[in-house]
């Protein structure tokens, strides 16, 4: 197949344009983070909230499957993040995304730990299992409808490690590097997990 110079030029333009948009967003986000940390600017934090509230809510809701509890936890995530940012302005934060997802992840674990403690004293392994299984029996709450819902239903039945990797990388479109920072793993390990998770997801969907 022959490539016309116009097609190449158009392709290059699209690439440059999307790269410039990504860079612009990234710089904007870092600028907002700088204003929050150095100037303690609530308005800048409000804009970061606008950028991340849906993502964090989805992340929490996916793990908890209760709208009210997901709303409460999401609010807590943002308040906790603000307090940390202004109280520890000397600590380096390379990416706001990985920082806020890590807080959300920890709060979800705390949530289940507290839940487990109330019912009975459970070891951490059991808590992790509960988190992984959360919503697996409650998927009806997601109002199953169509192929996407079917995928989400199957995804919820997979192990926690796979769920998190797929959710963050494929659904939330975070880079493998950011996923690695959030999950506290190496990039290579995240790529391997993603590959296996996708394979497993396909297998499960084919069985349906």
């Amino acid at each position: 197949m022959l490539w016309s110079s116009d097609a190449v030029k158009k392709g290059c333009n699209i690439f440059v344009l999307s790269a410039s948009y990504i860079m612009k967003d990234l710089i904007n986000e870092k600028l907002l983070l700088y204003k929050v940390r150095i100037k303690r600017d609530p308005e800048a934090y409000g804009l970061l909230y606008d950028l991340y509230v849906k993502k964090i809510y989805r992340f929490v809701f996916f793990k908890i499957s209760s709208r009210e509890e997901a709303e409460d936890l999401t609010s807590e995530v943002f308040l906790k993040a603000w307090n940390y940012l202004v109280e520890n302005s000397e600590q380096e934060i390379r990416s706001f995304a990985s920082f806020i997802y890590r807080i959300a992840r920890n709060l979800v674990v705390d949530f289940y730990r507290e839940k487990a403690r109330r019912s009975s004293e459970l070891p951490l392994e059991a808590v992790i299992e509960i988190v992984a299984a959360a919503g697996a029996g409650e998927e009806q709450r997601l109002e199953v409808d169509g192929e996407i819902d079917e995928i989400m239903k199957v995804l919820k039945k997979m192990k926690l490690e796979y769920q998190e990797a797929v959710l963050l990388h494929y659904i939330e479109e975070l880079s493998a590097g950011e996923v690695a920072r959030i999950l506290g793993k190496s990039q290579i390990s995240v790529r391997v997990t993603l590959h296996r998770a996708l394979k497993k997801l396909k297998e499960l969907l084919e069985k349906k």
Partner: protein
Amino acid sequence: MTETAVMSDLLKTQLKTAKKQNDRLNPDQSWVAQNRAKLMSQINNTVSKDKPRFRFDYVWQAINIFVPGRLAYTVVRPMAVFVLVGAVATSGWIASVGATQNCLPGEICYGVKLAAEKTQELVTSVAGAKGQQAQMHLEFATRRAKEVKKVVENKAVDAPQRAAEAMVKLEKSIQTANEAIKAVVEEEPEKIVEVVKGMQETAKDINQTLTVAAEQGGSEVDVAGTKQAVKDSSLDIVKTIVQKNEGDGKNIISDEDAKTMVQTQIDVAMQDTGDMKSRAEDAVKVLEAAPITSNNLPSDVVVTVSSTILISNSSIQVFVNSTTPIILPTSTIKNVLGDVNRQAIAQGQESQKTLEEAKVLVDGNHLLEAMGKVKDATQAAEEAERTVVEVKKAVDAVSSGVLNSQPVSTTTAIITEVKK
């Protein structure tokens, strides 16, 4: 393209669009807006009216906005440090030191602060005044002590490591100051009284600062070694001066000044011993007040003895390398800790007695002998202090009921540690 690859791509696309197509995954728009308003009101209440002070790491954070992550850390950061060091070396001291004075170990600007001090050190050494050099190193040591306190106050996750880093530097500064003061004795004896006075005050300040840091930082921040190094240095200098004054019959300072120096060492040691005793007495009171039977403190605690430990009640029992769990009544543990603590108090009283003897020797102009007594008393008090710190950890565990919920090995460690 294979069928599998096509399916993978399709699945990826479906996952990508999931958040847009499935409304149930997304938050309610009205909640998003209400929560934003609530959040803004909450965080506005926490914003202080004071403008944050400028720090060098803010420059780094600003650079980081426009430079991609990896490039920033591998290329720009080292360059930034280099440029900042250069700026500090070539610009006025007031502006540069002022900007870095709040930097703490573990922060990017801390290297700049130390580099600024190095440059200051170089300039002072070229000027050649030993007294000035000694004072400068004492000032650096005071800064390190304050850094230890600040690092602990900030409660960073790696606070113990950062505090340890500052303490290593503190000890180095004290050692350098010690050498510079000894040089003052030889080269500028007329300045030694003033320099030693500054050193004794600095040692006192550093010890107080480190004590506060240790109280705030808990068991993970170990300041005992550094405090001892500071005290030893001070004792060593005064002893050197007294020796020189008495040795060749040619006084470098007046008898009155020498007496005052020794007297100050005695007063400081007396104060430290008194403080140590008070802490030990407080720990005994806390221990005695801890309920033996309550919900969070059971009457018995299971302890596995993995090494030789001494359990003292009314008499002393020895368990040698027992691998069988032993059930110790909590009252026994309380008695053990109480006994060890009382031994520390007794040791403190002994030190105070020795210091009183040193005072008498000073009155009789036997300064060298008095210094020997001060050294003995300080060492004994220091040993007692270490015991009190260990006992305090265990007392806190017993009184808060943590002892019961801690792993058995930790419980054993506490008791073993206490007996050392």
